[in-house]
Structure formats: C-alpha cells, structure tokens
C-alpha cells in the first residue's frame, strides 16, 4: 500500500472504490447500486465540466465567502512559547463551518440531476444547517435526519434548520447520535432514490460520497497553500497541520494540497474525540486501533464489539461523535502519512478556555480538540516551527454545553 504523488487522494482507489485495496468500497444494498453508479458518472462528468467549476467557484466566492482568513494567534503563541500557532478560520464561512462547501456542491449536483428533494444526516447540526441553507438557496426541498440526543444538545443549529424550511426527522434508535442518523438517512434513500438526492455529511459512506465531500472541502487547502506562500514566501520547512477528525471531512480538505510533501516537512496531525476522561467510551477508532469493519457502506476502522455490532461512542462534541472514520484517513494512517491522536472532553474544554481567553476566536468543541493538541506540543517546538490549526467551526452551537460545563460562553 503506497501513496501516489500528483493524484488527489480521493482518486487513488481501485475499480471497486477501495483505497489501498481495502478501505472504502460500496457495501450497499442492491437497490442503491444504480443510484450510486449514476451519481458517480454524473460527478465524474461535472468535475471536468468548466461551466460547473465556474458555477461552484462563483458560489464559493460570492455566497459562502471564500477565501477564509489565515491568521497568526500572536497572544497564545507568546503565552505558550515555542512554535508559532496560526489558524485557518474556516468558521468564517457563511453558516459558520466547512460543511457548507460539501452541501453547496451537493445541491449543485442535485440540480444537474434534476432532483427536487435533498436529504442529509447531521451530528453537530452543522451539516444539517448548511444543507438546509444550500437547499433554500438552490430551491430544493430538504429533509434532515438527526439523532434525538443531538437535537437536544445542538439546539441553535436545529433552530437554524427549521428557519431555513428543512423538515427534521429525529432518530430514536441506538445511541441517538450521528451513526444512527446516517443509518436512517441511508434507509430513507433506499426507499426514495428515484426522486431524492442524498448528501452524506462527511467523507464517509459509499465511495462516491467520500469523493464528492473530499473534492468539496479541498477548497480549504487550496486557499491555505496560496495564503502560506503569501505570508512566508514559501512553504515553511517545519509545518504542522492540525485538525480534528470525526468523519474526516474538514481534515481531508485541510490536508489535500499538502499530502504530497515529505512528512518531515509537513506533518499532518489528526485529533479524534477521546470522550470523557473517566469513560471507556470514545470516538477515536484510529487512535485506539479499532478493528476494520463495514459501516454505512464503507470498509474502515470502526468501533465495534467482537461480534461486529457497531458500538456506541461518547464525546462532548457531537460533530466528532461517530463510530467510524473516513476510508481516506484509514489509508493515511496505514501508509504512515498522517499521525492520529485524541483529546478528551476535558482537554478540549481546557483548550477552548485558553483560546478564547487569549484570542478573538470562538472555536467550536470540534476544533477545540485540535487546539488542545496544538497547545500541548507547541511549547516543546522551536519558534521556526509553524503550527496551523483548522478552526473549522464556530462555537455558537455549543453555547448551552459551554455554559453548563464552564459557566460561561465565550
């Protein structure tokens, strides 16, 4: 198993949609074979279509406000000493997170496919909120599946979805979080794929959804590469790109342009959700060496019991609370290109406290996991080392949790 240079990772799969011959694929019911194949054909056509790219870029620039800022976190760098800490403030995108990139592309595809309806899953509610925004913008009727537990803890995003006219279906099965929402959403698509487009909210699911999402979020690293060169004149010789990893959509997008570089120059660090300090449950299949298995149509490392039942996860961050992880990250782990670690709920909260104390930045609990790792390693590193954290979401959605846990929001 080897990484190829000069080819985007999303395209480094075999004819069965498997990365490294083993991750990803299409473990789907027969009923979904044709819709998935049709979508694949359409997507491959559209990504080569200049008009489609122009349309995408138009909406990326004028509607969702790319490029997002790239800033140095002067105060926290000074406070910690050691490496420079920078942030790519992706949360400045319209709607407050990177998910808008994926949902916009999906809506544009759905329009080309002549679909009137679009359905999607959501954990933190960002994927759902953004899909509802995009659907409204492009005149599609939108249905969102969301775990009942997440509906309670991410109310601001639920309110936003409703305001955008989306119909929300609470999911009461299993752990009532993202994993169950994705299952229910896929089941809905099994029954309605003749009229409805499916937007999978992350780089997970059958291979084509991994590709579409990765292709969409790659906008982040395309911008960042230009910004880094503007700022430093060249790519720094010691660069660390730190991103939280749940399904893996923001981290893949944040890394895509940098995967070909030597890891001694650019280290890619993924931070999974370690869950509560005292709990055995977590949402970190890569860090904890979970076994391979099939989840939502894709072979991946996934938290499961010895029987193959997918196990419940636990994390303060709804966006990272997923039993599996993208096939792309499984591949990056196995070839040794990226390093994966985890931060506990408490560590993420500490990082949130620190960042909001020193900087005018309000990262949600997901990127707070990444900041935790950045703050942990920065003091040990030289000051010519550049750490960039993808601040991929805004904490507004977490205000209830933050008030409860920290007694304050911001």
């Amino acid at each position, binding site marked *: 198993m080897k990484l190829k240079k000069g080819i985007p990772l999303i395209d480094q799969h075999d004819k*069965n949609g498997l990365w490294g011959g083993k991750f990803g694929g299409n473990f789907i*019911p027969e*009923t979904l074979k044709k819709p998935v194949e049709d979508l694949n054909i359409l997507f491959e056509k559209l990504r080569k279509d200049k008009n489609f790219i122009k349309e995408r870029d138009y909406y990326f620039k004028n509607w969702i406000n790319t490029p997002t800022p790239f800033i140095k976190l002067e105060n926290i760098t000074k406070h910690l000493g050691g490496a420079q800490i920078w942030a790519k403030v992706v949360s400045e995108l319209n709607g407050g997170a990177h998910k808008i990139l994926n949902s916009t592309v999906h809506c544009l595809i759905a329009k080309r496919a002549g679909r009137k309806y679009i359905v999607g899953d959501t954990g933190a509610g960002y994927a759902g909120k953004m899909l509802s925004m995009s659907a409204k913008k492009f005149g599609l009727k939108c249905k969102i599946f969301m775990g009942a537990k997440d509906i309670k803890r991410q109310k601001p995003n639920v309110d936003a979805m409703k305001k955008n006219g989306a119909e929300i279906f609470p999911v009461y099965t299993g752990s009532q979080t993202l994993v169950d929402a994705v299952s229910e959403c896929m089941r809905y698509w099994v*029954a309605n794929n003749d009229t409805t487009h499916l937007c999978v909210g992350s780089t997970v699911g059958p291979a084509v959804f991994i590709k579409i999402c990765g292709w969409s979020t790659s906008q982040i690293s395309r911008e960042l590469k230009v910004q880094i060169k503007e700022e430093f004149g060249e790519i720094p010789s010691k660069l660390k790109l730190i991103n939280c990893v749940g399904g893996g959509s923001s981290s893949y997008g944040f890394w895509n342009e940098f995967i070909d570089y030597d890891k001694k120059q650019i280290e890619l660090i993924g931070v999974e959700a370690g869950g509560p300090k005292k709990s055995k449950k977590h949402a970190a299949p890569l860090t904890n060496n979970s076994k391979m298995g099939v989840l939502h149509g894709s072979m991946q490392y996934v938290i499961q019991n010895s*029987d*193959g039942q997918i196990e419940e996860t636990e994390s303060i961050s709804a966006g990272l609370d997923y039993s599996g992880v993208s096939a792309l990250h499984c591949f990056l782990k196995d070839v040794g290109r990226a390093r994966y670690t985890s931060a506990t709920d408490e560590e993420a909260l500490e990082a949130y406290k620190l960042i909001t104390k020193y900087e005018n930045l309000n990262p949600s609990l997901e990127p707070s996991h990444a900041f935790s790792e950045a703050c942990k390693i920065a003091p040990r590193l030289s000051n010519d080392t550049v750490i960039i954290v993808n601040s991929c979401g805004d904490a507004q959605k977490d205000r209830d949790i933050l008030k409860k846990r920290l007694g304050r929001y911001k």
Partner: protein
Amino acid sequence: MSLSPISLVFRRCKKEKRPALLTYIVAGDPNKKKSLNILKSISENADILELGVGHSTPIADGGQIQTSSYRAIKNGFKMKDTFQIVKRYKKIKNSKPVILMGYYNMIYQYGENKFLKKCKQSGVSGLIVVDLPWPENKNFAKKCKKKSISFVQLLSPTTSRIRMKKIIKDSHEMCYYISMLSTTGGKLKVSPKKILENYNKIKKINKAKNIVIGFGITRKTIASLKKSDGLVIGSELCKGITDSIKNGHNPVKKLSLMVKSLKRRIV
C-alpha cells in the same frame, strides 16, 4: 448430482402448484429460547425459514425488523447463538431449509471461512447478505458454492437488464427480487400486477432459477402475488412478535397461527 434442499422445496411447491412460503424472523427475538420455539412452531406451514442476524446499523431494514433486531441484541443475542438455534431447530423431524440473512460486517468479523464452516455444521442451506452486492460478492458466493451453501443474489427495481443478466448468470438456485424501492416492510407502493410484470421479465432471463419476491408483502397482498416461485414475509411476522409482547400474549402461538393463515392464502 442430487438437488439441494432449497431446490427440492421449489420442486415440491411447483408440483403442488403454489409458491413457496418463506418466513423471516430475527434470531434471538425475543430471546434465544422463544425464537427457537417460533421456528419449530412455524415449520409445519413454512417452506423455507429465513433467519435474520440482527445488526446494530441495518441500512436496508424498516421499523419492524429494526425493532426485532434491537430487541434481540438488547436481550444478549450473539452471533454464536444463531448457529445454536439453527442446529437445534434442524434436529426436529419436519425441519425446513434455513437461510441466514444479515449484513456483511457480522460475517467479516467472524471470518468468512469460519462462518461458512459453522453454517455447514449447523445445517444452514443458504445465505442472503444485504450489503454485499454483485460483483463484490463474487468471491464469497464461490466459497459458498464450494460448501454447497446457496448464495442468494438480490435483484431490485433499480437493477438494469444488463446487470440482471450478469447477476443471474452468477446466481445459484434462488434469487430474491425486491418488490419496490423501499426498506423492508414498507407499504406496498407498487401494484402486485406491476411487481409480477417485473418478476416475469426476470424469469424470462432464465426459467430454471427460482425467483422469490419480498419486501412489503402482507396477509392482505400475498394472494395477489401467488403466481411466483416464492414469497417472503418478514416485517409482518416481526410485528406479530412485537404485538404479542405488548399484549402479553405468547409470540410462539401467535406466529404459528399467522404463518398457518398465510399458507392458506396461497394454496
């Protein structure tokens, strides 16, 4: 070469000029003992028994089967129980062929070869793996064939004719036609006439293959589809178990009566 137990069932049903009745319940629902007793009690009227292996993230099952699966898992169901239930069931005098139906991850974790060995030892005749479509299932289907276990290919209204021909070519003695775009147990949103039209198109590709129809079939609709090789009833039976638990009735007795009445409608 002698005919497989599944082929024998279809041959017998054809002689009796009726479709085979295939029932589906989830292994270990509501618990190990009762689910074995249900199998024993419906055995008289059912021709082939599908036994579902409950999974925590079932992407093609509707509410009724999900409820059964979650109930079995909650009551401690483990993969090894499936084989135990089948083994004990196969010991009774009038036992029928058993087909296990489930999701690939359960087989993958068990190990394909070990799983097939266990199937063989306990007396399983066939397998349906919901999320292992053709051509991804080619290798596994071959392994099944070597063990004389029938791998049941699925066909759906979205399967193109070219694809259908290829799948049928690789299929064993039985294929499963999914009646409509739906998860299991959805309301029948296509007319039985239309379903039979599609069914006949499939039969024309290869008359020797036994094609059963499933998804959304109930007591009310079963008679209208009897001009087929076989019919699968699943969600309604799972609901029967749920209802009898809710009402404090005996699910074994209830299911036995339900299957008896289903059989009456197709003979």
